[in-house]
């Protein structure tokens, strides 16, 4: 089969790889029909995530058709049209039993700090991802949903990570009626977080970024106010000024390791790999939120340390909530929102690529070319 493979920092190509096989009785093999390139794939692409091996296939957002199932799979049949959460979870461990699917203790041999994930390096379990013609799905009875007839494939693929992660970011902010919510990052997750903040009753939603087309989408898709941080001298001062010096009630960090806005942080992180991620946006969030406010962090960072302003967080009595999204837990409510027209996840898709264009797709996403927000990849296996 053909698959995207990592060749080293900033380099990917398409190669012939062995077909995935059933390696556990509850495995399924899925023929991928649609995959996405995620902002967090860039952490791997830039070489920031430890144990990203040459030859590894990325892709944790994908939909497909069941090709083969293992002997113990009960809820899937060949030909089913399915979507997979980016989490790989066993459904039976301490964490899964408490619906903390992203923390599954039975699917990541390489680390205990996170559960297994598709296509997200060996630090997340070493499972090849969905930017390929076929993919192995472990614990298939747990890790799937049949795509409803009424749901489009593009809506479905965005429900495998970006949309639920944005929703959970807002949810972790414990938003109350009339709250001022600031979202750092106008990428897919930030856009969905802003949109979700309204669903939870926010009184004001402000999205921060430096890319004008993404801010435009924040205004049209997410009905948010926007701030291009290059247009103000001091982001934190700006938010004090516009909130009567109180600060925002909730700040959501949806940027992660590759944050721009502080040259030194970027150099130390993305270029020199001296930190697990540039905490520029996270530090802005800590300083822009009001005392006793909530900072919700969904931006991805590597496992190494980062220079976070924890003293400010402690002095202000902040609640900092973080998590990889437990996608499956959010599906029933988000399916309702999509069905009722409250959410239209596919509205943020900007590019549709063939698998052969994957290297250009990564370069475009990494360098933020062509007004990119969300590129999809269509592997089209014969």
């Amino acid at each position, binding site marked *: 089969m053909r698959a995207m493979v990592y060749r080293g920092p*900033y380099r990917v190509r398409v190669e012939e790889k062995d077909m995935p096989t059933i390696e556990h009785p509850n495995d399924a093999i899925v023929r991928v029909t649609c995959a996405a390139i995620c902002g967090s794939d860039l952490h791997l692409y830039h070489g920031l995530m430890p144990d990203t091996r040459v030859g590894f296939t990325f892709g944790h957002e994908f939909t497909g058709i069941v090709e083969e199932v293992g002997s*113990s799979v009960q809820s899937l049949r060949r030909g089913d049209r399915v979507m997979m959460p980016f989490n790989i979870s066993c459904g039976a461990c301490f964490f899964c039993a408490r619906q903390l699917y992203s923390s599954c203790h039975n699917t990541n041999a390489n680390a205990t700090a996170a559960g*297994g994930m598709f296509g997200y390096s*060996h630090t997340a379990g070493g499972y090849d991802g969905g930017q390929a013609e076929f993919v192995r799905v472990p614990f298939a009875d747990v890790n799937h949903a049949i795509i409803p007839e009424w749901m489009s494939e593009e809506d479905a693929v965005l429900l495998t990570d970006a949309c639920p992660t944005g929703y959970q970011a807002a949810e972790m902010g414990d938003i109350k009626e009339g709250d001022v919510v600031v979202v750092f990052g106008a990428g897919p997750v930030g856009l969905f977080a802003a949109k979700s903040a309204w*669903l939870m009753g926010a009184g004001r939603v402000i999205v921060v970024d430096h890319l004008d087309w993404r801010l435009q989408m924040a205004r049209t898709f997410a009905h948010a106010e926007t701030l291009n941080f290059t247009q103000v001298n001091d982001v934190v001062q700006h938010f004090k000024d516009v909130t009567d010096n109180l600060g925002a009630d909730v700040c959501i960090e949806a940027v992660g390791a590759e944050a721009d806005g502080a040259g030194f942080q*970027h150099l130390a992180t993305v270029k020199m790999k001296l930190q697990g991620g540039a905490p520029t946006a996270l530090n802005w969030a800590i300083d822009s939120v009001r005392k006793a406010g909530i900072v919700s962090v969904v931006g991805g960072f590597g496992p190494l340390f980062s220079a976070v302003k924890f003293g400010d967080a402690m002095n202000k009595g902040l609640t900092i909530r973080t998590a990889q999204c437990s996608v499956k837990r959010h599906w029933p409510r988000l399916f309702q929102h999509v069905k009722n027209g409250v959410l239209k996840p596919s509205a943020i898709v900007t590019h549709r690529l063939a698998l052969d264009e994957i290297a*250009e797709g990564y370069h475009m996403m990494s360098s933020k070319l062509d007004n990119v927000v969300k590129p999809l990849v269509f592997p089209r296996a014969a």
Partner: protein
Amino acid sequence: MAYTANKPNAPDTRELRAKIPGWGVDLDPGMRPAAKKEVYDPASTGAHWEVPEQQIATFPRERSTEHREITPVFGTACPPKGLSGIIRRAAYRHWSEGQTMHWLALMFADRIDVLESLVVDLFRGKPDNFLAEWGIKAELTRHGFKSRFGRHRADTWRVPLDVLMLASSSLLVLGAGYVMVNGFKSMLAPPKRRWLFG
């Protein structure tokens, strides 16, 4: 003027409800699926086992020291190989996730892996095409210049630095690859007579 107990500029929520599609549909925390962080409900997961069956390992699978044993399922993409594999196995064997050395060793192995793969794939007849793998074509087809300049982007200042770092690191990789190939060739070649013994 002193600050008061009031929340400043409270919005008119009726106006928001009229203006924003879906405003407030999940205002009630009871409508939010994960508002309560932990909900014990093992019957809802789709699992029909209490103890999952064990996947059979076909190679010695590395694992975190913080796990008691190998997990019931695990990825089998890219088993450790070569020098990078030795370093990776050592990183997993000797240091827990709490040790910085664990992560630094893995990062170091990642860089060695790039070099090894460059050489191995050259011999496999699948040499790296750096320009294609960078996706540099997107600079032409996806409006590289227009996307970057005159748009108040915070990252425009580092474009020359990006190009310089990419070019120099690639030259380093190619140079190291060349040395490795030559070293390999000289290992296979018959020993030369040296003047000392000639």
